[in-house]
């Protein structure tokens, strides 16, 4: 671009130092950042995948308080060991009535049912795949809280890369519209890296900051508790947990929820109750938290707390409380794109994959620079190609495994399948060059995605009860075809003026 620059000139020494830091950090965390971006882009559609996985479950646009109460009472009869329960009410993204219960330690015993619009429990919930991919993004399937810490650290590294990336590219805004392909590999990748990085900048900043915050929350609260509450983290969390009814372990039948519904409706007529958390449903001191979200707000929704006798204990303050509570309530929806319907979800997925591409092109720039200097990092080129393209394949195989195995298969089956496919792909560098690895894994990934759609249609039909399943299938076909076409097709680009 011609004309006088409007940006202040930055000293070349500073830019070179920033580039060194940016490069070192990006390379150190490249694989983890790529994995988190890829899994995050898929995770945006967790609810749609849950519907795709069980497309024969009945849909309910809305249910009456009586129906929700029926689901609760039936659930407690089927699961009398319940220590906690979660009743999911139909929303636009997940139009189902469901109830989940668990013992004090969730891994000991869990039950999860889908109900019809009248609240009668019909079939167990099938959400192994959507749960697997979400946990891969939240905590990489590592033990708690370490998985969360690692995800938080990756978020910090990503945020740091963004900061150093902005500071080390003083021409980024000047070259905002320039994208040229061809010629030297390094220049081509640098153009793509810088352009995608610039246009997604607000999104990348917000997503990495909120992701790091969500991952590090336990650590931050732990240190705060150490400083203020002599290490008692419960006291720190109590500031956000809201009112708690007086504890009373005396046995009591599960209460009628309709009175609590009426209270919420009277207090917030526009709000939509999205879920109910029940703690100690069979005790006189039970706690019933109704989450009600008001349209037009980025919020997890206000939470109304009730005692077992139906009296209100107050609200948590997510929509009516302090600024801090409102911000906290908006962090997760902003991070996952769960605030503006399907269009925002698609934008998040596209920009999320854009961030994964930026990571990948960053590594490609480093590799091309090594080649230009006559010191090619061939092993790393092979490993990187294998790792990046292993993930669509691993996801396709894992999702197929869910459809082809019984619902009560071992919990760690999916992790083994995902890990096995990833590791097997990482062995390809022994016998293949980067280009062939990329072509092989893209073709296999695309082919298996098509196979996955075939298995899904074979099991549930083309148009099952839930139409979202058809949309997901069509999107998967589109992605599969794009992956296969990317192997054989080279786009035509305009010559530079």
């Amino acid at each position, binding site marked *: 671009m011609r004309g006088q620059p409007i940006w202040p000139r930055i000293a070349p020494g500073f830019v*070179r130092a920033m580039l060194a830091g940016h490069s070192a*950090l990006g390379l150190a965390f490249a694989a983890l950042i790529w994995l988190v971006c890829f899994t995050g882009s898929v995770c945006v559609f967790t609810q749609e995948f849950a519907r795709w996985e069980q497309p024969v479950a009945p849909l309910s646009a809305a249910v009456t308080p009586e129906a929700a109460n029926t689901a609760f009472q039936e659930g407690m009869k089927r699961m009398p060991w319940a220590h906690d329960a979660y009743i999911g009410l139909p929303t636009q993204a997940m139009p189902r009535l469901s109830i989940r219960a668990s013992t004090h330690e969730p891994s000991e015993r869990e039950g999860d049912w889908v109900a019809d619009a009248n609240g009668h429990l019909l079939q167990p919930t099938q959400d192994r795949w959507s749960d697997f991919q979400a946990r891969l993004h939240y905590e990489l399937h590592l033990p708690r809280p370490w998985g969360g810490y690692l995800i938080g650290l990756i*978020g*910090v590294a990503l*945020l*740091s890369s963004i900061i150093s990336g902005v500071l080390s590219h003083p021409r980024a805004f000047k070259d905002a519209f*320039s994208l040229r*392909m061809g*010629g030297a590999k390094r220049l081509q990748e640098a153009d793509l890296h810088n352009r995608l990085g610039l246009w997604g900048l607000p999104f990348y900043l917000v997503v990495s900051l909120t992701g790091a915050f969500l991952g590090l929350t336990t650590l931050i609260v732990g240190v705060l508790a150490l400083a203020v509450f002599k290490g008692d983290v419960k006291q720190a969390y109590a500031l956000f947990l809201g009112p708690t009814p007086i504890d009373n372990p005396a046995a009591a039948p599960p209460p009628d929820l309709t009175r609590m519904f009426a209270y919420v409706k009277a207090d917030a007529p526009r709000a939509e109750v999205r879920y109910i958390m029940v703690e100690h449903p069979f005790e006189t001191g039970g706690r019933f938290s109704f989450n009600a979200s008001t349209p037009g707000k980025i919020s997890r929704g206000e939470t109304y707390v009730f005692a077992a006798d139906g009296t209100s204990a107050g609200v948590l303050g997510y929509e009516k409380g302090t600024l801090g509570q409102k911000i906290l309530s908006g962090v997760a929806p902003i991070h996952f794109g769960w*605030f503006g319907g399907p269009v925002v979800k698609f934008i998040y997925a596209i920009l999320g994959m854009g961030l994964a591409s930026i990571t990948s092109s960053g590594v490609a720039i480093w590799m091309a620079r090594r080649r230009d200097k006559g010191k090619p990092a061939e092993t790393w080129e092979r490993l990187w190609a294998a790792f990046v393209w292993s993930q669509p394949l691993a996801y396709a195989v894992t999702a197929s495994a869910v459809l082809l195995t019984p619902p009560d298969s071992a919990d760690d089956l999916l992790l083994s399948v995902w890990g096995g496919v990833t590791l097997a792909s990482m062995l390809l560098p022994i016998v293949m060059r980067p280009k062939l690895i990329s072509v092989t894994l893209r073709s296999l990934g695309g082919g298996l995605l098509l196979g996955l759609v075939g298995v899904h249609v074979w099991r549930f039909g083309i148009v099952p009860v839930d139409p979202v399943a058809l949309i997901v299938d069509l999107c998967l076909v589109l992605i599969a075809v794009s992956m296969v076409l990317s192997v054989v097709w080279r786009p035509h680009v305009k010559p530079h003026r």
Partner: protein
Amino acid sequence: MTPVDLFHGLTAEALALAGALALRRAWIKPDGLRPWLIAGGWLLWLVAVLFGQGVWGSVLGIAIVVSLICMTGALVVLSNVERRNVKTRMPREAALEPSDRKRVMWRGWLRGVLAGPLAGMAALGVGLAIAICSPGPPQTRMVIGGLLVPFLWAGGMAWTLSDNKIIRATCVLVGVAAVSLGAAFLKGSIA
């Protein structure tokens, strides 16, 4: 999605696209129209944000429209890919290289410790100090202090990995961590 939602979405997208195209036109051709196109492009984006706020609410509107602008801008760039002329190298393509530091093992480890645990402790200290010592409701202080932690840690990480004067970075981070954590633990009360 109702037809009204669709209309609102398409209007916001049209404004975002018009803004991006105006800015691109200004970028391609630096003629007399250029300042007007730059101002017009930004104005269109501002109108898109205000429109979004009016339709979807103040915070939600900004989030939706900014997401739209990001994606639209990226798509405008991607749809105008050019083939690089390898014979005429643009001046901007003589890009700067990262500074070539000598590889010294202890410096590498120290840099890692600075960017990781030490920058993390300093950031945690500042976040805690704000949560404990600043005025306002405790929940607000905790959330703002908590949100600052990853941001400051990331900033510290970027700085320590880039700064060639590694001892300076060590001194600053140790000092910040000591002062902020000291202040937080000394006060020792969130009320």
